[in-house]
């Protein structure tokens, strides 16, 4: 699953560049001045306690939460100026499935693939990759288990071929086989040129997967422990 020539758009600049980034949820600063640089093809793990700001950071990087202060550039797009144009280039696996319960698995994956302007054939291959082909593809999403829904959301993301993968608890609700598939997808995406930022409470598994680890607390990046550079807390 190779993204569209990611090197052509922003050269060697970091995929993510945050300096003193502040994001408010109402009047509460969910991000209170985050500094972060992530290079292309890196896998970065965000860790931290509940309420540390992991989900808000992922949503802000997707252009869904406005950055009210500081610098925030994602895939060469200044989020302070334009949050919309980065959105179709990122894939966000959030807590919500983003699926229509009444539609079948295949209908959902095909719809979101076409909506992203991707090749319809990618929808079929993504369903095969996530084990959603065959009988399961015609089942309504509302009748699926939590893990099967998670796989369907992942299939929608994979078929879109995003340049930046933002995964919020991607292992949650999955069995061991499903979690292995997630890890394999993440590694393949990075190898193909995409960048992956994920949060997970499955730390043993996620630490093995990540090139860099960033710890968040109180809406700021507290430290980083890299395994080779590239994801730096400034």
């Amino acid at each position, binding site marked *: 699953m190779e993204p569209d020539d990611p090197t052509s758009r922003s050269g060697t600049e970091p995929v993510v560049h945050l300096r003193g980034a502040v994001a408010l949820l109402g009047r509460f600063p969910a991000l209170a001045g985050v500094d972060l640089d992530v290079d292309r093809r890196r896998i970065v793990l965000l860790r931290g306690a509940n309420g540390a700001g992991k989900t808000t950071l992922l*949503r802000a990087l*997707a*252009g*869904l939460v406005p950055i009210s202060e500081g610098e925030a550039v994602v895939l060469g797009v200044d989020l302070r100026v334009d949050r919309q144009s980065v*959105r*179709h280039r*990122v*894939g*966000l696996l*959030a*807590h*919500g*499935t*983003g*699926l*229509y*319960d*009444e*539609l*079948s698995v295949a*209908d959902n994956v095909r*719809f*979101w693939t*076409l*909506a*992203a*302007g991707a090749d319809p054939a990618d929808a079929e291959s993504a369903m095969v990759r996530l084990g959603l082909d065959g009988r399961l593809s015609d089942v*309504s999403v509302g009748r699926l288990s939590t893990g099967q829904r998670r796989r369907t959301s992942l299939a*929608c993301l994979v078929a879109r071929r995003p340049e930046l993968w933002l995964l919020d608890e991607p292992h949650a609700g999955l069995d061991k086989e499903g979690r292995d598939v997630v890890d394999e997808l993440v590694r393949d995406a990075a190898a193909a040129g995409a960048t992956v930022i994920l949060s997970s409470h499955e730390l043993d598994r996620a630490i093995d997967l990540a090139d860099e680890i960033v710890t968040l607390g109180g809406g700021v990046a507290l430290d980083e422990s890299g395994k080779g550079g590239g994801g730096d807390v400034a």
Partner: protein
Amino acid sequence: MLRDAWLIARKDLRLEMRSRVALNQVVPFALLVLVLFAFALDPDRGLLEKATPGLYWIAVLFSGLLAMQRSFAVEAADGVTDALRLSGLAPAGIYLGKTLSVAIQLLVLEVLLGVGVAVLYGTSITGWLLLIATIVVATAAISTAGTLFGVVASGLRVRETLLPLLLLPVLAPVLIGSTRAFEAALSGTPSEGWPWVGLMSVFAAVYVVAGIFGFGPLMEES
């Protein structure tokens, strides 16, 4: 934009075909409204016949509200709104697609209600050209305005009660225009109905333009 509109309309219609909410809930509700009007006005059969155009369009409006609420309820569930924002679909395309799917559902509903009116109220149908033009233009007006106000209400917890409060006053000119045009058609004086069709056409055109430009910012706020 048109590709996006077609994609959204096809998805919404497929959702309705699979869930059958419109068929199992909206259509029976609309027919029930007609029956209740008949019960209420039956002692005076002349009044019922005279009021038929207005009763028909009130039933359409009430039932259409259910269809519009449903159209946005499916987008509010389980992170779908965020997925739509991230999809790359043009907001104007989403607006036009949702408008088209609501309009198609309303047209089906209006045909069924027309049959219901003819059977329950004994209305003899005349002035077909004006009736059809009124139905098409009024449907466009209701669905263009309804979709725009639907996204305004969709992000709020009180959307089920807020949408009627916002939308019904806005649609008052459409209710008046469509009722007058139907009266003209059924009374054999179609020339008196065409100006109302023109008025509703302008109404629909204004809301199409407002929706194309305003739906994106409103979706951001929802």
